[in-house]
């Protein structure tokens, strides 16, 4: 279980995360959503101890997480938004370095590296240095690196950013499989359909503060499960209804440039972020 208690991070006079409190249960698939600059990456960076909070604390299984907490850190693995790897190492060396940092035996490192790189379709490129890999390959390598240590908690910061549709679906399947093995997963993403498809619960944050925290289904039903989009000349306005009949009634009165559809998590996000689709 991970608990964020009154977590705050300030950079000079800018507050990136503002008294954020939430709890992620063991085995949960948790989404951290928000617009650009909402504080998602800063929160993940604090959970990985790269950044230290200005105030507040993070507890992992009841014990405070800081840079000295080796036992707590052993449970964690992070896939960062940026390619945080030695560019001059080859894939095997990147994996071995990770294994050594987590005190795995040479045999464990060797066998799991082969297994994971084969699984990701990277084994034949194992001697290629990171700087000569494509963006997608680097992303896959980061996933392999994170999974090498068989973590209990996986922190993912925009893991599918820049991936093609097929790779993203493969990634979803992998994450579902890992979560099925009781791995706790905390995910930040810009793709709302990704959060809706994967997460048990999501937290919507904006300007560093928690706006909403619930299951995707509940957040959608709270807004209204039915949406009517009205297209004007230069804008799209959506209206939300709890009952289908209400939505159909509204639709019949609206002009021909209106359409009925199911409300999505993206609608909740847009409403919550106070933005209009232009």
């Amino acid at each position, binding site marked *: 279980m991970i608990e964020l208690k009154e977590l705050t991070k300030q950079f000079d006079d800018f507050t990136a995360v503002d008294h954020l409190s939430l709890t992620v249960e063991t085995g949960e698939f948790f989404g951290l959503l928000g617009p650009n600059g909402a504080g998602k990456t800063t929160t993940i960076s604090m959970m990985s101890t790269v950044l230290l909070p*200005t105030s507040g604390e993070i507890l992992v299984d009841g014990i405070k997480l800081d840079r000295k907490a*080796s036992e707590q850190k052993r449970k964690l693995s992070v896939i960062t938004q940026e390619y*945080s790897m*030695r560019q001059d190492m080859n894939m095997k060396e990147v994996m071995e370095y990770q294994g050594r940092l*987590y005190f795995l035996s040479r045999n464990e490192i060797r066998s799991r590296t082969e297994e994971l790189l084969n699984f990701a379709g990277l084994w034949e490129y194992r001697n290629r240095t990171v700087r000569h890999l494509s963006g997608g390959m680097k992303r896959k390598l980061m996933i392999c690196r994170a999974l090498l240590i068989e973590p209990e908690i996986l922190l993912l910061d925009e893991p599918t950013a820049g991936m093609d549709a097929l790779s993203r679906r493969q990634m979803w399947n992998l994450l579902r499989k890992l979560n099925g093995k009781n791995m706790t997963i905390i995910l930040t993403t810009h793709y709302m359909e990704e959060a809706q498809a994967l997460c048990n619960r999501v937290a919507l944050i904006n300007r560093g503060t928690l706006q909403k925290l619930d299951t995707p289904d509940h957040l959608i039903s709270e807004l209204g499960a039915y949406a009517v989009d009205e297209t004007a000349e230069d804008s799209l306005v959506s209206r939300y209804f709890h009952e289908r009949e209400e939505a159909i009634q509204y639709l019949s009165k609206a002009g021909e440039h209106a359409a009925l559809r199911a409300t999505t998590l993206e609608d909740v996000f847009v409403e919550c972020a106070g933005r209009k689709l232009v």
Partner: protein
Amino acid sequence: MGIITVLWEKWVEFRRDFYKITVASMISPLMYLIIFGMGIQTTSHGEPYLHFLIPGVVSMATMTGSFSAIAQNMSVQRLYEKALDQVMVSPTPLWQFILGQIIGGSLRGMYAGGVILLMTAPIRTDLIFNGMSVLILFLNGTVFSTIALVLSFLAKSYSDAPRYTSYIIMPMSFLCNTFFSTDQMPAGFRQVISLLPLSQTCSMVRSISNGEAPGTFGFCILFLYLLVFGFLSVLFIYRKKNL
């Protein structure tokens, strides 16, 4: 265990860039030896100037080798590659990571110094380099590795590393008992220069090479720098809010 991991990482880097590292460590000292030692034929304290120069250049090579190995590498890892994040999130105790960097950096400096010694071996100088010289050069390397660590934690961009070399390494290279004796410097300035680590390393290595015992003051100065900058680098990696 964490120390071995860092040394392994340094070994991977060294093995891959062996030729580049070797050539880079040779160029400047070789130039100094050729220009000052062989080109400008002169004497110092009644001895061929080369006898004075070699211990200074070897000491300087361990300084630049250690400093550049850590300063550039850590700045790039922290600010550009973000590879330091991998270490920060891992359970490897961070003090072990720091210690590994210090030892690894010093070994790189020792390698640079060793290359110079090998290059000058054919020249008959009768200079003595023994186990104590090796220990002093190793200590010198650890001092400059810790200084490099602290500066790379303070760096705001990876272009800061070359600037540190210009501000710190370059002046020390020329002023700290390397090419000429600090005895000829004005009082006051001489005292300040003598408190710098490279001055003491040059002085001690030169004493040994002339068959004299090195003074304990030099060891005290080097240990003091090592303690202060070692403490700061451990403090930064554990306590710096935004690494």
